[in-house]
C-alpha cells in the first residue's frame, strides 16, 4: 500500500487515512477510521448527520490533528502538517457551508483561490476562463461581493475558487446543501467535469443515491467508525448503508 513515486499513475492510492482517532479537545469523535482514495477517481463518503464526515475532512486538511494513526497524501505523511502546507501539496477542502469571503468580490475570492501560487497573468487568465466557462453566471457577477450571490451561485464560486488552484485532490463537503434540484444537477455536472479533467475527488453528500451514482468507491461512516467500504454500486445496495441511515445514535 505504499507509494512508489510522487508522479503516480491513475488507479494508485492518492490519499490514505490509516486507523486515525480524531476529536475536539477531549471529546473523541472518530475512532480507528481508515479510508483511501484512488488517483483520478471519485470517492463518496456517506453517513447520517453527526457521523463524523466533516470531522474526517477537517483532519485530512490539517484543521484537526489526529491523536492516533496517520494520513498519507501523494506518498507523504501529512497528519502533522499545517493547513497551508497541505493546501500547498495540492489537497484542497471546500468546507461545509461554502465559507466564502462574503465581503470581498467574486473576483477577489477567485484570486484568493491561487493564494501562494506563482503564475503569470496569462496563466491566471486561462484558469479564470475555465471557471467562467463552467459557471458563466460568475462572470456576470464578478464585481459583486460574494455575500450578495444566491446559495447556488455561492456554491459555484466555492468550487470555482477551488478550481483556480487546480488541486490534485478536491474534497467537497455537502456541495448540494440548500440548492434547488436544477442547481444540484449543475453542481454534479461540474464535479464530473472536474474528474474528467484529471482531478481526484472525495465527495461528502447527503444526496446519497446521487453521490453513489457518480462515485466509483464509497465509504460509510456511522457514529465515528467506518462500517463499510467498497465499489459504490455494491455499497448502494448494501445492508450497512441502510443501517447507517436508520440507526439511532
Amino acid at each position, binding site marked *: 500500500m505504499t507509494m512508489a513515486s510522487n508522479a503516480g499513475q491513475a488507479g494508485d492510492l492518492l490519499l490514505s487515512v490509516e486507523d486515525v482517532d480524531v476529536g475536539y479537545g477531549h471529546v473523541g469523535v472518530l475512532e480507528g477510521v481508515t479510508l483511501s482514495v484512488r488517483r483520478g477517481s471519485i470517492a463518496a463518503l456517506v453517513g447520517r448527520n453527526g457521523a463524523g464526515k466533516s470531522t474526517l475532512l477537517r483532519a485530512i*486538511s*490539517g*484543521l484537526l490533528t489526529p491523536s492516533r494513526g496517520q494520513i498519507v497524501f501523494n506518498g507523504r505523511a501529512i497528519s502533522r502538517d*499545517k*493547513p*497551508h502546507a497541505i*493546501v*500547498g501539496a495540492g489537497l*484542497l*477542502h*471546500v*468546507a461545509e457551508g461554502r*465559507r*466564502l*469571503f*462574503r*465581503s*470581498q468580490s467574486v473576483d*477577489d475570492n477567485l*484570486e*484568493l*483561490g491561487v*493564494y*501562494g501560487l506563482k503564475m503569470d497573468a496569462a496563466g491566471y487568465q486561462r484558469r479564470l476562463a475555465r471557471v467562467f466557462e463552467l459557471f458563466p453566471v460568475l462572470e456576470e457577477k464578478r464585481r459583486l461581493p460574494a455575500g450578495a450571490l444566491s446559495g447556488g451561485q455561492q456554491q459555484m464560486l466555492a468550487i470555482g*475558487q477551488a478550481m483556480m*488552484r487546480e488541486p490534485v485532490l478536491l474534497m467537497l463537503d455537502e456541495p448540494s446543501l440548500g440548492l434547488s434540484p436544477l442547481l444540484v444537477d449543475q453542481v454534479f455536472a461540474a464535479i464530473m467535469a472536474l474528474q474528467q479533467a484529471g482531478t481526484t475527488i472525495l465527495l461528502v453528500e447527503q444526496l446519497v443515491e446521487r453521490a453513489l451514482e457518480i462515485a466509483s468507491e464509497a465509504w460509510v461512516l456511522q457514529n465515528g467508525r467506518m462500517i463499510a467500504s467498497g465499489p459504490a454500486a455494491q455499497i448502494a445496495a448494501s445492508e450497512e448503508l441502510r443501517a447507517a441511515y436508520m440507526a439511532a445514535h
Partner: protein
Amino acid sequence: MDIDILARGLVAGSLYALVAVSFNILYRPTNVFNFAQGELVMLGAMVFASLATVLGWPWYAALIVTLLGVGLLTLLIDVVAVAPVLARSQHGTGWVITTLAASLIIANGVNRIWGPDPIVVRPPAPLTTDTFSLAGMTVSAYQIFLVLLTVILVLAIEQVYRTRQGKAVLAVAEDREAALLRGVNPLRLSRWSFFLGGAFAGLTGVLAAPVLYASTGLGPALLLKGFAAAAVGSIGNNRGALIAGYLIGVTEALGAALLSPGYQEAVVFLLVLCVLLVWPHGLFGRPFARTV
C-alpha cells in the same frame, strides 16, 4: 468664537487617526489590540528627534532608521508577546496583559535613555511651523502638510489591502479557518502586519514631533485617543478611523475653547461614550460579519 479651533482640532485629529490606523493594521489579521501602540509612537518621535535634531542626520536617513527600528521592535512584540499567547488559544485574551507589559517596558526604557525633557523638532525645509493667516485661521505650513499627508497615508494603506497579500489579511479577518483552507498562513501575515503597523506608529511619532515636541509623555494620550478614534470609526475600518480622528480632535479643541482646557478630555470621552452607546460597533458599521 475663534476659528483657529478648527485648525488645531484637525491637526490633533490627524494624529489620532494615524494611531487608529496603526491599531487597525495589527488588528485585522489577529483580532489583537496592541496596547504598546502609544509608546511605539512616542519611541518613533524620540528616535527621530535624537537622530535628526541631536545628531544632525539628514531627515530622510533618520526617518528610514526610525521606521525600520520601530517596525522591527513591533515584530518582536508579536514574536515574544502575542503569537505565543494566540498559539495557546486563538480566542484567549492574554495579549491584553502581554501587550500592556510591552508598553510599560518601552516606556521605562525610553525614560532611562532619554529622561523627561522634551526635544524640539523642526520640520525639514520648506515646511515650517511659522504661522500665517489663512481664511481667518492662524496656521503653519507644517499643519496643512500634516492634515493632507494623513489623508494620503490612509488612502495608501487602503491600497495595501488591494494587493493579494492584503486581500488575504482581510480574508483572515473575516473567516480565519476558511483562509487556512485556501493556503493562507496567518502567522506570516500577522508578522508582516506587526512590522507595518509598528513602522506606521513610528511614522506617526515622527509626524507628531514638530507639533507636540518629542517627549516621553506622548504615549498614553495618543494611545487613548487613537484607540477612541478606532472604536468610533469602527474597528478595522481605516476611512472610519480618519473621520473619527477628526471628529475627536475637533471636539477636543471645541471643549477646550468653550469650557476650559481642564474639561477637554472629559468632553472627548463623553462623545466617545455617547457614540458607542448608540452605535456599539462605531459609526461605520461592522467591517465584517465574523464567523467563528
